[in-house]
């Protein structure tokens, strides 16, 4: 056995031979295989079916030869790369502040910054337009302030707008992952370097940054994959087909041309590209993974009140920036939900009408009593179940991945990341197949929705838990085993408590992702299962944008509360 940093080889034969660690990963692997891999493979094999229903490679070859394919692939990679870099750059200063200082409103920032992440992309687009648009709130404000005739800010409908919207959507992931990791880095190396006379910047560059690479890479991969399949944001805010991604092409073939074979071959291409990228990432991640001693956050090592004015100013600037950047578009959604035309000429004014309609206290021809209230409850239940199950499965899988190295576990990790690498159009087709095969009952289709959500959120939960798990020194595990605990006890009473903070973050993310999920729910559920995003989608489809914004506001509120509570729990303020 090869010796590695931290020495898995010497971590004892108990760990290697324990059946506990071997079987713990099984449930999530099984679920992934059944709900995701099988239907996906079925759809993807269509890429190799020719006109005469026989096996052919010509479709794939033709595609690979077409310069247009390569042009859009290049652009897809390019915009995803830029978006990722920008998101990380925006998140880093925030992660630094969150991890190292305590200040008023810190928990609130953490809670608010994650919200964009749960909104359906159409609401993100609307929010952006309401706030930054040519006749948006920001421009109206500036025009009123400086008595201008023309809107001064023309931010939208350019490539920059796309990057900004992607960053708005994604930097919260980076902020959460990096700051959670950073908070728990032991400061002793920094202290040692400081004692030896190193400058703060040198310490950051040579000690802190290298240790932060795992969460940075982790966040980057997620963001990259998100932007890789971007669609609505790119077309609308970018101004049109100049900015075309592979996802648009897949959609066009699957939905407009009903050419499933063509869609499958394109999707195959994007999956291959993504798998290569994720593979490279996982490989690098392993090279740089250090075993750190986690410091329990209860010990409050970080609580440092900064006296220096400079830091105070920096904190203030970052707060102002992130509020404008994140709260602006969110505020746009909230604003729209409280306005309605008040005259025949179409002047708008303040109203509570949309909320009254949603909750059935005012009866209008097109509203039904309590639709929103029951959808709210249902969404909550589904999100809770899905994130709980997802958390359990992914933690077990992480435990297995940590204790096993080599090619097998690499492919297992790749496998678990797959749901993020596949186009949502193709996944949607897969779900159609599943629901046709299983022909679920009423209750069954609900269970299926929960399980589909588990599959969707698992990559996130895994990416949050795994880097943290790898950080746990094997010496803790060994010590526990030496002192007479068995493997199971070690897992429950030594490893899990050390992961507390990451588990909570992962749960909150899973919850948010599930409560905002639309695609799978729409395809898998029978029509009686109505969640919040489904109502939002339907309202928008029937002209009621303000009503959709009202529901969006409710979604925003729920998520703010969930993240706020999760921060409290993390810090042990709620036990």
């Amino acid at each position, binding site marked *: 056995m090869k010796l590695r940093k931290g020495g898995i080889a010497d971590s004892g034969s108990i760990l290697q031979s324990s059946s506990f660690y071997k079987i713990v990963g099984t449930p999530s692997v099984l679920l992934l295989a059944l709900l995701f891999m099988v239907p996906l493979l079925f759809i993807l094999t269509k890429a190799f079916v020719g006109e005469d229903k026989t096996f052919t490679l010509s479709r794939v070859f033709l595609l690979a030869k077409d310069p247009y394919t390569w042009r859009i692939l290049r652009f897809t990679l390019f915009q995803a790369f830029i978006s990722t870099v920008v998101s990380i750059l925006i998140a880093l200063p925030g992660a630094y502040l969150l991890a190292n200082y305590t200040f008023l409103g810190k928990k609130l920032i953490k809670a608010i910054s994650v919200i964009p992440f749960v909104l359906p992309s*159409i609401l993100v*687009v609307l929010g952006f*337009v309401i706030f930054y*648009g040519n006749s*948006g709130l920001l421009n109206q404000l500036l025009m009123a302030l400086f008595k201008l005739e023309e809107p001064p800010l023309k931010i*939208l*409908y350019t490539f920059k707008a796309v990057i900004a919207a992607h960053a708005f959507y994604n930097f919260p992931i980076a902020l959460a992952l990096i700051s959670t990791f950073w908070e728990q880095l032991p400061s002793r190396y920094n202290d040692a370097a400081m004692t030896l006379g190193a400058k703060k910047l040198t310490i950051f560059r040579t000690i802190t940054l290298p240790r932060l690479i795992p969460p940075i890479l982790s966040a980057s991969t997620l963001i990259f994959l998100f932007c890789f399949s971007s*669609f*609505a944001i790119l*077309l*609308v805010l970018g*101004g*049109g*087909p*100049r900015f*075309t991604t592979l996802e*648009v*092409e897949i959609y*066009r073939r*699957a939905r*407009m*041309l*009903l*050419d499933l074979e063509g869609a499958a071959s394109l999707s195959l291409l994007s999956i291959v590209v993504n798998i290569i990228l994720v593979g490279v990432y996982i490989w690098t991640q392993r090279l740089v993974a250090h075993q750190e001693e986690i410091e329990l956050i209860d010990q409050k090592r970080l609580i440092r009140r900064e006296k220096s004015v400079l830091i105070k100013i920096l904190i203030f600037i970052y707060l102002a920036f992130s509020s404008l950047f994140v709260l602006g578009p969110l505020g746009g959604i909230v604003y729209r939900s409280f306005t309605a*035309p008040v*005259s*025949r*000429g*179409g002047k708008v004014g303040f109203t509570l009408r949309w909320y009254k309609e949603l909750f059935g206290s005012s009866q209008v*021809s*097109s*509203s039904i009593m309590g639709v929103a209230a029951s959808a709210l*409850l*249902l969404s909550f*239940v589904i999100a*809770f179940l899905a994130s*709980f199950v997802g958390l359990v499965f992914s933690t077990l899988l992480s435990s297995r991945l940590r204790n096993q190295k080599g090619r097998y576990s690499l492919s297992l990790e790749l496998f678990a990341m797959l749901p993020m690498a596949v186009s949502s159009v193709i996944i*949607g087709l897969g779900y*159609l197949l599943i629901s*046709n*095969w299983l*022909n679920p*009952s*009423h*209750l069954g289709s609900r269970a299926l929705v929960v399980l589909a959500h588990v599959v969707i959120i698992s990559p996130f939960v895994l990416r949050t838990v795994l880097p943290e798990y790898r950080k746990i020194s094997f010496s803790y595990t060994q010590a526990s085993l030496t002192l007479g605990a068995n493997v199971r006890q070690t897992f*429950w*009473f030594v490893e899990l*408590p050390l992961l507390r903070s990451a588990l909570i973050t992962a749960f909150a993310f899973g919850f948010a992702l599930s409560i905002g999920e639309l695609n799978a729910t*729409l395809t898998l559920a*029978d*029509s*009686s299962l109505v969640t919040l995003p489904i109502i939002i*989608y*339907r*309202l*928008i*489809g*029937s*002209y009621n*944008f303000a009503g959709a914004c009202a529901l969006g506001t409710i979604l925003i509120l729920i998520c703010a509360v969930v993240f706020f509570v999760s921060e409290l729990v993390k810090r042990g303020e709620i036990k």
Partner: protein
Amino acid sequence: MLKRYIYLILALFFIPLALFGRGAKEEPATTAYLTVYAYDSFVSEWGPGPAIVKEFEQKSGIKVNLVSSGTGGQLLTRLVLEKSKPKADVVIGITNELLHETYAEDLLISYESEALKDIPSFLHFDPKYTLLPFNYGNYAFVYDSQKVKEPPKSFDDLLDPKWKKSLILIDPRTSNVGMGLLQWTIAVYKEEYLKWWEAVKPNVLTIADGWSSGYGLFTQGEAPLVISYTTSPIYHIMNEGTERYQATLFDSGNLGVIEGAGILKSSKNIEQAKEFIDFLLTDAQLEIAVANVMYPVNEKVELPDAFDWAPKANPSLFLDSEEIAQFRDKWLNEWTEVVSR
């Protein structure tokens, strides 16, 4: 210490589970019923689906299971994917555009309903009557009357430099409305349609991915003109009481889109399915028109006053579905080439 948490977590886990179970008890009785696939907005609380199903069940005593099957294009895909194990008896919402593809899959039976005699002949888009028209609309540019005093009357008018960055269009690669606009320009300009697209570029603010985002931008005031339907103003009149948004007809005519319904060959309830189709083309017409904000096909229907705000296209243009099927890919390629330049 951890044990305490486990109980807490378990408790939290089971409370929702209990609620979840309670919601599941409303299982319908297991009498044989008609399974109807429709696009999502038809099925939703805001669509015509729930009301007409209730009415039909009361009238005929036949139970209906209305299933949401995503957007229009997905309906056919779903039927094709389910070919080996068909579930639906009736499908609602395949448009005239997809007639050729529907023929090719050979999924539906021919049914010449009695009700067709009240439906004007220009709407009989399927000569074999596998798809029967139940609802139609015309694409049109909708304008904001606060900003536009003289609405454009033709595609040529839209090229006027005064409309610089004033149009919100929709991408034909990702949306039926976008596809409708592309076909409309082809119906008007024939071979020359790409010239119009080249010339209109400076006047386009953005090309949205779908009707929802495009129309959302429009009502947000980002641009005074958007591609939508002649019937769009009706919504604003009926639900918001404002006449601010109006549709403009083009002198060349406006492209029409007809939604059809059909009965599946695999159905074991053909007679009940026929009854449902008849109902759809007669008694359900008003409900469908109002909820879908589209025109009814049945001439006998008396419409609410708000429909006066939806001007009738003269004429309704249609492309041949064979032609569409043959050239769709080519058009999209050419279009993408020109517009992304």
